[in-house]
């Protein structure tokens, strides 16, 4: 229903475009120069007048209609149904809606509910017909208005461009509102969690075992929600990953941008970037099946106790995975440092490495920090490799040879499978998510500060 209406509006708008453009040609007389704007702007002007108001009405209508219809249906229900408690009433309404859309209903429908469904269907039909009529009327009125308004003096270009600006603003706010929405949803669930588990227990607890008891006398379900071991695991693995990725990434970026011949660079850079395209699950089993046994055997040969799932294995492979984030972005920013900087340094008798150390790296620092930051957030958010290679046991340890687990892995294990959304166990996932978000936010702010303080601007 709605899609065919939108299609019709689109057709009408394009008709409006041609009408407007033709009229512009007509009022221009023998010379387009007489017009304030190019004819296509007059076309767009008419099309916008045709499409925009109608679209806005359709959008608002589509948002309000279900609610209004539901109100009307409830009002039309027999009193004994209407007086039901809210949750039972909700079930009845659900049944009615299922009947309307032809889905399976919970029980054999009684006549009152059947009648209500019929009522619902009628209301829906009326609503749609009204919407069609209103939208088409508005669209034609828009065309008429736009068409009549066209004159050589009409500043169609400015008005069309203003609409385009508004469109751009709207697009940029989508991302912002999405972020706000995500944060709010996580926040509310987290608040529910903190009603069950005190904030201090959560932040300072050294024990993580999220099994809560169903019955009071159940054993083996202590239900400890201390995040310290999880964050320690996250930091340990991310730290190992950064120890691998930053030096290797930076040095390969320096080689690519300063030493490699253009030919080699053209081949090597895409090859490095392929690393970023490998699915993380592939890295995961590479870590679990190849690297972890290798580390265990090496450790055994050296007389060390190595768990078969270790932070080291996960961290190493994760480090390899994020090398391209560091190298590719750093390479770009180092390349963006003007050649005149290099020339200036060489002309003073500096060697290549002195130039890199003292001129290029400081000048490219903001970009390099940015790339490292991106890599860090990638490392903190990475889940698959850790699930497969580092294990699930929440050990509080700084020993990279032991199994650890991370925040993201715990979120996954808490939320996979059938869940009841009011237990502390499930809600803990949201609290973890919120904490993770806050931590990365703080990291971002720190990095921004560092960049601003040490940046050397070259323009």
């Amino acid at each position, binding site marked *: 229903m709605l899609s065919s209406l939108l299609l019709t509006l689109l057709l009408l708008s394009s008709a409006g475009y041609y009408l407007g453009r033709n009229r512009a040609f007509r009022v221009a007389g023998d010379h387009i120069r007489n017009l304030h704007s190019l004819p296509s702007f007059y076309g767009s002007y008419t099309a916008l007048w045709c499409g925009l108001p109608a679209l806005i009405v359709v959008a608002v209508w589509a948002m309000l209609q279900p609610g209004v219809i539901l109100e009307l249906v409830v009002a039309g229900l027999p009193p004994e149904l209407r007086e039901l408690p809210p949750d039972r009433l909700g079930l009845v309404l659900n049944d009615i809606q299922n009947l309307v859309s032809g889905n399976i209903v919970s029980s054999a429908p009684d006549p009152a509910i059947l009648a209500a469904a019929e009522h619902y269907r009628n209301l829906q039909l009326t609503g749609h017909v009204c919407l069609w009529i209103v939208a088409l009327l508005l669209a034609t009125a828009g065309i008429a208005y736009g068409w009549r308004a066209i004159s050589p003096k009409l500043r169609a270009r400015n008005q069309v461009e203003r609409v385009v600006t508004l469109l751009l603003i709207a697009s940029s706010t989508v991302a912002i509102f999405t972020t706000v929405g995500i944060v709010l949803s996580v926040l509310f669930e987290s608040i529910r969690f903190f009603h069950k588990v005190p904030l201090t227990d959560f932040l300072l607890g050294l024990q993580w075992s999220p099994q809560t008891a169903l019955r009071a006398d159940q054993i083996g379900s202590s239900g400890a929600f201390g995040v310290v071991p999880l964050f320690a695991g996250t930091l340990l693995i991310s730290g190992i990953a950064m120890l691998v990725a930053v030096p290797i990434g930076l040095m390969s970026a320096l080689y690519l941008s300063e030493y490699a*011949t253009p030919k080699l660079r053209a081949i090597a850079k895409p090859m490095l970037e392929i690393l970023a395209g490998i699915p993380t699950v592939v890295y995961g089993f590479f870590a679990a099946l190849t690297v972890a046994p290798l580390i265990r055997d090496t450790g055994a040969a050296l007389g060390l106790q190595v768990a078969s799932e270790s932070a080291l294995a996960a961290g190493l492979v994760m480090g390899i995975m994020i090398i391209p984030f560091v190298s590719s972005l750093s390479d770009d920013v180092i390349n963006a440092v003007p050649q*005149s900087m290099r020339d*200036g340094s060489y002309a*003073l*008798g500096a060697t290549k490495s002195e130039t890199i150390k*003292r001129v290029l790296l400081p000048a490219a620092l903001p970009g390099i920090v940015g790339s490292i930051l991106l890599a860090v957030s990638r490392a903190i958010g990475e889940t698959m490799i850790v699930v497969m290679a580092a294990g699930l046991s929440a050990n509080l340890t700084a020993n990279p040879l032991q199994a650890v687990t991370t925040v993201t892995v715990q979120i996954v294990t808490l939320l996979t499978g059938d869940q009841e959304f009011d237990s502390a166990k499930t809600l803990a996932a949201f609290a973890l998510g919120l904490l993770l978000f806050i931590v990365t936010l703080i990291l971002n702010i720190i990095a921004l500060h560092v960049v601003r303080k040490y940046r050397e*601007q*070259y323009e």
Partner: protein
Amino acid sequence: MNTMTIEARVPLDGALNPNAREVPLSSTQITDYDHRQTVGKITVDNPKMLCREVNVYYSEKHALRQVSLDIGANEVIAFIGPSGCGKSTFLRCLNRMNDTIASCRITGQIQLDGDNIYDKNIDVVQLRARVGMVFQKPNPFPKSIYENVAYGPRIHGMVNGKAELDELVQASLERAGLIKEVEKRMDEPGTSLSGGQQQRLCIARAIAVNPEVILMDEPCSALDPIATAKIEELIDELRENYTLVIVTHSMQQAARVSQRTAYFHLGDLIEIGETDQIFTNPKHKLTEDYITGRFG
């Protein structure tokens, strides 16, 4: 002829004969435009650098042909010529800055104090410490004013300790005529200075390494007349201690600051001689055409 143009182009400077065009041209002027052998005396009595039969190729392009000239100690020599004539290319040969261009190939001999700078045993890093360079567009490093000047002495280990470095930075800025303007703002970024100040900072930066020769590639082309005047004054003062080679598009500038002038045309060194003579009595028709503004 077109006297008006000439008067506009050639400054009525003390160094020049105001009635330059009235002086009859030497009867030996070469009027053949295809004559590409260098006219004039290429040698000097006390050469700092000797260039013999220098050829430069960019890939297949023969950018500079058989250029031979001497650069005398403590003189200012100006390279002039229309765009693309090879003067900047030649300048960049003198401290091997062309090494950074992969497709560039150089033949011939360039000597600094008798040593061929393209010899295998020559360390290009040390060469560039002896032959400094100032670029067309001021290119201070994105560091503080102090750090910009201290850069060279630091990488060459020229000083022991902070006090000595401070002194050297002060002295270099003073010789570049910038000290009064930056004394109180040594920690501000070099890029916060005005264009002319930035260029003098680049000169100070070059002087700090205590080079023997300073190459300047159109050092004033991005500057306003007042900043240009300051730099020209500075060039004149620097001549006492250094040998200067300056590429310029402004013939007034060449006339004002240099003792000898070399005219390049499409990869050839056409004419070289005393600046006065080049501007008053060019021996080659091409030179005359250029300095009288007939082209270029």
